């Protein structure tokens, strides 16, 4: 059985929310513990409003929840949301994909065909990806 329609929709929302480096970083922080939005904003070289927007995208994707305490908005990662079976398998998938990518890199580093002039060979030659 593949993912259901609803799971695909949710995955789309997550991938959108996570397709941004700052949002991924924010989510890392709030999964580790509750942070005020203003404290988060101080961590980035961007306006409070911009950080607030990123927080809102994560909130809409159901990855983050907010509560108010006095004047402060406190954000935490919604671990429950990331805990449905589909999400759990997706999480494992990420881990496995990482392993596979690292294996691929390892193979790419294997001794290339004999170079003509060993000294000319760059030590960190970029590898061509075939797709």
């Amino acid at each position, binding site marked *: *059985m593949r993912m*259901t329609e609803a799971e695909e929709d949710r995955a789309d929302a997550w991938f959108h929310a996570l397709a941004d480096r700052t949002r991924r970083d924010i989510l890392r922080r709030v999964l580790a513990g509750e942070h005020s939005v203003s404290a988060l904003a101080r961590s980035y070289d961007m306006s409070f409003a911009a950080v607030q927007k990123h927080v809102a995208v994560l909130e809409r994707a159901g990855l983050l929840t907010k509560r108010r305490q006095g004047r402060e908005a406190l954000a935490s990662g919604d671990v429950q949301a990331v805990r449905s079976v589909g999400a759990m398998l997706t*999480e494992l*998938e*990420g881990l496995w994909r990482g*392993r596979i990518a690292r294996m*691929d890199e390892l193979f790419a580093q294997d001794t290339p065909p004999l170079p003509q002039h060993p000294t000319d060979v760059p030590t960190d030659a970029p590898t061509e990806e075939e797709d």
Partner: protein
Amino acid sequence: MPVTDVQHDLDALTLTITADFAAPVERVWEVYADPRQLERVWGPPGYPATFVDHDLVPGGRMNYYMTGPEGEKYYAYWDVAAVQQPSRFDFTDGFAVDDTFARNPELPEAANTYTFESTDGGTRATFVGSYASAEALQKVLDMGMVEGSTLAINQIDDLLAARAA
């Protein structure tokens, strides 16, 4: 991107990932047969794995730990069930209580089968992992990757690249 297929079986709580590597089967096998190579690929970013015992034979034990960013250690093991070098091995993996590598009975084990087949371009690898229950899967993620969610996000670039492909 070598990943060619991903299947989530929500009923059987099984994840199956197929990948095509541009390397011969023997080379792919070597990654699992050589603890130093396995260490380079097993632990997610920020959580390097160290294999203390490595015995890839039927009935063999693999004991390893992952070290987190704060220096915290997570002890785990593989119990190797069957080995058909270089095409397949089966193992259960689980968490250990500490550096004695005694099984932590409160945490579930997962059953895994890795197979490697020769193809024109190299090797098709199929990785299958199954959990006994959703609770088991959740415990594994809660504990295992303790910051499991965080790890997944660290890997998300790979996922995005795969989706875009």
